[in-house]
């Protein structure tokens, strides 16, 4: 059986959840082989979720420059292993690596798949969630980026045999040097695109202080915090948390929209959430069209009550 290469996304030595989702999807296409670029990564979860092989490339050259060295590493593995496909997370960097790898290997690329079947047919949701398309790659090695939360990761223990690979990074790939990494305060909340639950606030939150109510609800649920563009543009919440067409696309199990009207550009980023709860004082707000459960009311009444209720039920 051919291998399916899965690029591992990791932070602080820990494998991110999306990687386990990719390994789960990879099983249908062949034998999952995880590719770890970087050092000090705990590879145990990779074996647990189905990686028969784990290729580890550790040289500093690979992470000191923007994107291109990672393309070198994957291109080398594609030529050595002739995999059935390469799966990457649909993060900003994952997509850039995928695009360049497609050129390097004369292959086609599909980004933002939400599903892949055994024939390699990918499902995508486009135009802000309005249309579902199915497509496949017809040339070269299929290179596919997959959105977080597209499948539930399933444990499937495999050998997880670690193989160190040495990659020669070409001079051409050392042109954009990372001179400094600035980690902004992140706190304890999960990352927006990976989170199983997202609690968002919009203009209705009224100001920076209002977001305390949103954060308290998020914390009661172990959720990430999102925001509409109205809220990020006003400077009430950091830009990285913007959900929508020009922000992040999220697809959590539960999305709670508070004080958000539901403009098409916002919906484009959250429409595929599995369950949607809405709190808005305007009964005509278009966001209610998406709601599985909607409350017409003041978020400053409803949200704190909900938070308290969740906390007390937990306790």
């Amino acid at each position, binding site marked *: 059986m051919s291998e399916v290469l899965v690029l591992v996304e990791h932070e602080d030595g820990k494998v991110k959840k999306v990687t386990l989702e990719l390994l789960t999807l990879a099983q249908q296409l062949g034998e999952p082989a995880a590719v770890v670029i970087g050092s000090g990564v705990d590879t145990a979860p990779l074996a647990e979720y189905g990686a028969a092989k784990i290729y580890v490339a550790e040289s500093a050259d690979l992470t000191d420059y923007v994107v291109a060295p990672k393309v070198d590493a994957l291109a080398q593995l594609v030529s050595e292993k002739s995999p059935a496909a390469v799966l990457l997370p649909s993060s900003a960097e994952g997509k850039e690596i995928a695009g360049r790898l497609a050129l390097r290997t004369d292959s086609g690329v599909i980004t933002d798949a939400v599903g892949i079947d055994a024939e390699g047919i990918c499902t995508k949701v486009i135009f802000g969630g*309005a249309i579902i398309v199915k497509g496949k790659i017809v040339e070269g090695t299929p290179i596919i980026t997959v959105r977080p939360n597209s499948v539930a990761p399933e444990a499937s223990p495999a050998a997880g045999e670690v193989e160190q690979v040495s990659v020669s990074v070409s001079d051409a790939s050392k042109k954009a040097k990372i001179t400094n990494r600035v980690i902004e305060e992140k706190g304890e909340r999960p*990352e927006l695109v990976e989170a199983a639950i997202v609690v968002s606030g919009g203009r209705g939150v009224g100001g920076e202080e209002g977001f305390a109510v949103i954060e308290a609800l998020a914390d009661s649920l172990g959720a990430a915090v999102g925001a509409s563009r109205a809220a990020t543009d006003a400077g009430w919440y950091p830009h990285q948390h913007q959900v929508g067409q020009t922000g992040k696309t999220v697809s959590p199990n539960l999305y709670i929209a508070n004080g958000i009207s539901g403009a098409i550009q916002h919906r484009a980023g959250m429409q595929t959430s599995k369950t949607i709860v809405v709190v808005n004082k305007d009964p005509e707000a278009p966001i209610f069209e998406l709601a599985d459960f909607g409350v017409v009311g003041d978020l400053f009444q409803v949200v704190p009550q909900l938070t308290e209720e969740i906390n007390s039920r937990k306790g």
Partner: protein
Amino acid sequence: MKIAVCVKQVPDTWAEKKLSDSDKTLDRESVDGVMNELDEYAVEEALLIKEANDGEVVAVSMGPDKAEETVRKALQMGADSGIHIVDDSLAGSDSVATAKTLAATLKDQGYDLIIFGSESTDARMSVVPAMVAELLDLPQLTFASKVSVDGDAVTIQRQADYGYDEVQASTPAVISVVEKINEPRYPSFKGIMAAKKKPLESVAAPSGEPVGLASARTEILEFAERPPKAAGVKIEDDGTGGVKVADFLAEQKLI
């Protein structure tokens, strides 16, 4: 400093977008086109760099006849000249073909910087800038929330989930910008009048590379409108709205 800025025409976000039944590509004729919003930030950044360093800004777009409007808009904002790549053979190009066409048009023209938006709002792939960097063998300075140019040294802040990376390279280089980098200017009346006299050249697809739908390495097999969501429950808050949401979440096993 010679700067190219790549601008794409996309359907107006408010318009209902459709795929054509015959070839399953975006039907671009039936909807109003606008400049991809993120490309306005790219044009603004190009103009700011030009204003600080002297030089010229060339707006480049690949697209059907109508896409000329988007090149014109860049000229109205202040770009000095425009190139519109228009060719029937380009219809249905995928990201690979788009990147190859742009790269072939930009190659060997003496550009110090080639600036892109970080994403088109229709394709939403965020791959074209990285691909052009690959094809032209130039440093990739993408997802920039800040750009500083000092002689031939270019430094950016590359936006990431954790914060940002500082990245350094020398010109010529490829840059893509994110929304928070600047505040795009509106074309002034003077700008609109001046744009009428600025050179805007239409060029055919560069030869040598297969492009268009026939060359696409991806094939769309089928598409369908997403079924509308079944209507949910909607209640008025009577003072117990929060409790009722909690009941719903418990019922759905979400808490």
